[in-house]
């Protein structure tokens, strides 16, 4: 009888069920347009996103989940996607810089960037968020006044798996 009670006591423990929570961290890139740019018109012949010229520079944030899996490629405009009729050439300048990072180890991104024409490539060697600022300036003819109307240009932000 004692033996039976002991056996029952052993098997009378509550039953535990393990409920697993499974998560996977995989390589992933998210491009966030933190701020769309606006052209200022400091001179009759010039449109510029620089704050000093009354413009707003676009800010693009890249979030990568795992380090060293992506390149960020940002191309500043070299043409208007929509504008009034232009009878003279437009000279484009611009560039992209790192404006903010979530990790101090990303501080070398700007120095290591590769610029090819209007495209700037950054090697995203760290996991986390990086904010890029792109400047764009369009100068019309030789100090020629731009015609009135709407001007739009596109900044291309790419995230390319390595």
């Amino acid at each position, binding site marked *: 009888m004692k033996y039976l009670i002991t056996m029952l006591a052993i098997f009378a423990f509550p039953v535990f069920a393990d409920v697993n929570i499974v998560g996977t961290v995989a390589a992933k890139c998210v491009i966030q347009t933190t701020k769309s740019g606006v052209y200022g018109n400091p001179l009759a012949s010039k449109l510029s996103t620089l704050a000093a010229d009354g413009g707003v520079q*676009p800010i693009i944030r890249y979030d990568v989940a795992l380090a060293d899996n992506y390149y960020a490629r940002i191309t500043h405009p070299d043409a208007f996607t929509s504008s009034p009729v232009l009878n003279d050439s437009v000279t484009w300048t611009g560039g992209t810089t790192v404006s903010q990072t979530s990790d101090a180890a990303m501080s070398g991104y700007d120095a290591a960037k590769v610029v090819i024409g209007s495209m700037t490539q950054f090697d995203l060697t760290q996991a986390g968020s990086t904010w890029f600022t792109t400047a764009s300036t369009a100068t019309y003819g030789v100090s020629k006044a731009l015609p009135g109307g709407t001007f739009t240009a596109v900044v291309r932000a790419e995230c390319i798996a390595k």
Partner: protein
Amino acid sequence: MLSKTLIILLGWASAISAHEMTPAYPDLKPSHVAGVVKAEMSLFNSREEIKYYQIELFDLNWNNMPFSTTYRIMKVGYKERKNFNVYIRKSDLDIATYICTTSKIKRKSGARTLVSSRICSKINGEPR
């Protein structure tokens, strides 16, 4: 003062605006068609101003390559996730390198820059 307020509002309005595509390194699976494999992809759109994304396939030199999918330009609503398959011929697998989605931008009024986003996954690539 008014212009500063407008600029701040413009920045705030576009503060949560993202384009996401996974996986970075898709597995290629057999499809229901002989000689064709498929990559199962997923796109999440939280760019409120974007409603359409274009799917493209490129080789290593960024030349367009033939592929098949349900919609090459697909509508993805704000805060919507869309799964899609990209079908690639087995004979093209040696050179097919990138599956990309690119946001399609609508013309807007005002002197401004717009941001076109493109995310590319790598076929036959491996996480580092």
